């Protein structure tokens, strides 16, 4: 569907840390103060709140109470890695309906051990996967990567090129945990985690928080002269769920892409913020979106420069692979980097022509298939 009157107004972030035991509420407060400072909004201007985390048993209404928000709309947005785009979609629905005009979409992770983390392993993961000694998501994506390599002849160098390009993008991103250059040799030599997935195919879990302000066009015009519109968004949940022999190397993003590109031209996208829990997942999404044929992702990567200076800029701030994954805030990182680029605020890693960005989220590696949630949006800068 096409959105008409919903805009991104601003974003706020914390620093990322691999060790900090700052409380989750403390992380939220830092990100919220950051966005209020940047936008000039007061806390009382915000009348909708969405919360995404696995680091606390408290759901959005409880968080709202603790942070002192009186609201017209509240959402607990846990769709795995698709939560960033998913929260934006749902907030946009509510804004278009007139339930609210300024939403704060919040996500974070914390290593504060005094608070119980929220999510247990889901039933099928607990009863039919974990019992075999699997290695978490790394193992489940490894099964998919091996199939891609085996069926399509994709090479480690092609997969690695994504990680290496993203590291180049991260070098001038102050938020990134990994800013030292990475060579292809560094990638290939990195420790094996779950063959063929290596250490530099994996994200670094960290603590931190991200937030986004989404508003009605009318409010947005009062708040910023850098108007970034939500143009279109779509999602697919549990693609192939009833197929007991699913195609593991095709995600629901294929169907999401069909919806997205019925509204926007493929070639009109300037930059790609593609959920990157693993480089192979980026490659598969590029295929699913139809930028090349299924299985040709490796060749596509060979033929393009994926850096922020390149002809197909991907994860221009380094992505989760180089910045770090603050739990479910990982999916928000991509939305925010898109916004940063379109507002011309990506100092040191700014894409020259940044008018339209495609942002994706994927989540819930599942039993025998691939992903539970896949979602995408297009944002556009208008003068």
């Amino acid at each position, binding site marked *: 569907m096409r959105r008409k009157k919903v805009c991104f107004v601003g974003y706020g972030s914390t620093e990322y840390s691999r060790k900090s035991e700052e409380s989750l509420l403390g992380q939220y407060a830092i990100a919220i103060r950051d966005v209020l400072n940047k936008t000039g909004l007061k806390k009382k201007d915000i009348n909708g709140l969405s919360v995404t985390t696995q680091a606390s048993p408290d759901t959005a209404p409880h968080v709202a109470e603790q942070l002192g928000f009186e609201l017209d709309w509240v959402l607990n947005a846990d769709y795995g890695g698709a939560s960033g785009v998913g929260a934006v979609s749902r907030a946009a629905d509510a804004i278009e309906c007139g339930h609210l005009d300024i939403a704060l979409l919040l996500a974070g992770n914390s290593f504060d051990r005094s608070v119980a983390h929220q999510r247990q392993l889901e*039933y*099928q993961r607990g009863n039919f996967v974990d*019992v075999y000694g699997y*290695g978490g998501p790394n193992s489940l994506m490894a099964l998919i990567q091996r199939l891609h390599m085996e069926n399509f002849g994709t090479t480690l160098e092609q997969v690695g090129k994504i990680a290496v390009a993203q590291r180049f993008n991260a070098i001038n991103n102050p938020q990134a945990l990994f800013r030292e250059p990475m060579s292809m040799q560094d990638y290939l030599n990195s420790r094996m*985690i779950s063959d063929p997935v290596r250490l530099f195919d994996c994200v670094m879990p960290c603590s931190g928080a991200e937030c986004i302000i989404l508003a009605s066009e009318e409010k947005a015009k009062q708040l910023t002269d850098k108007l970034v519109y939500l143009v279109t968004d779509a999602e697919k949940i549990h693609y192939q769920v009833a197929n007991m022999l699913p195609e*593991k190397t095709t995600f629901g993003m294929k169907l999401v892409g069909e919806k997205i590109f019925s509204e926007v031209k493929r070639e009109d996208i300037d930059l790609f913020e593609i959920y990157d829990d693993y480089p192979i997942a980026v490659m598969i999404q590029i295929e699913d979106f139809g930028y090349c044929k299924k299985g040709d992702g490796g060749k596509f990567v060979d033929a393009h420069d994926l850096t922020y200076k390149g002809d197909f800029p991907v994860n221009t701030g380094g992505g989760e692979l180089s910045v770090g994954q603050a739990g479910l805030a990982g999916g928000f990182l991509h939305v925010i980097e898109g916004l940063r680029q379109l507002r011309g605020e990506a100092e040191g890693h700014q894409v020259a022509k940044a008018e339209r960005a495609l942002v994706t989220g994927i989540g819930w590696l599942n*039993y*025998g298939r691939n992903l539970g949630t896949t979602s995408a949006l297009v944002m556009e800068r208008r003068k």
Partner: protein
Amino acid sequence: MAEARAPQKSLPKINPVDRPFWEGAKNNKFLLQKCNSCGKVQFFPRIACVDCFGEVSWIEAKGTGKIHSFTLVRVPRNPAFKEEAPIYYINVILDEGVIIESRLLGDNKEKVKMGDRVKVRYEQTHNPDIKLPCFELA
């Protein structure tokens, strides 16, 4: 304060829906669900047919299939499996046409290739009532 305990290998939390599966495994049978309405065979166990929502019954699988994909887990999520790493974690396409997540065992597991034929092998867990269906190269 609770004393630190050595990590235990993960076990299924058996529930009314999957109890027949685990009872079957205990008796060296690999059970799948089959829809009474549309005939679809499915795994993991669900309350209804994943396709048409019909009621399901249990059928016995042959316990044979082929490797669809595999990975060598160097860092198991549950540290209790650490001593056994690398774990040969596999996806098997059973001959009944269903993908199963499992583990490859046996002295020759290092030779595994995509498409290799496998057969089920039941492993006793530390709970005497629970056996785990694993596989070995056929």
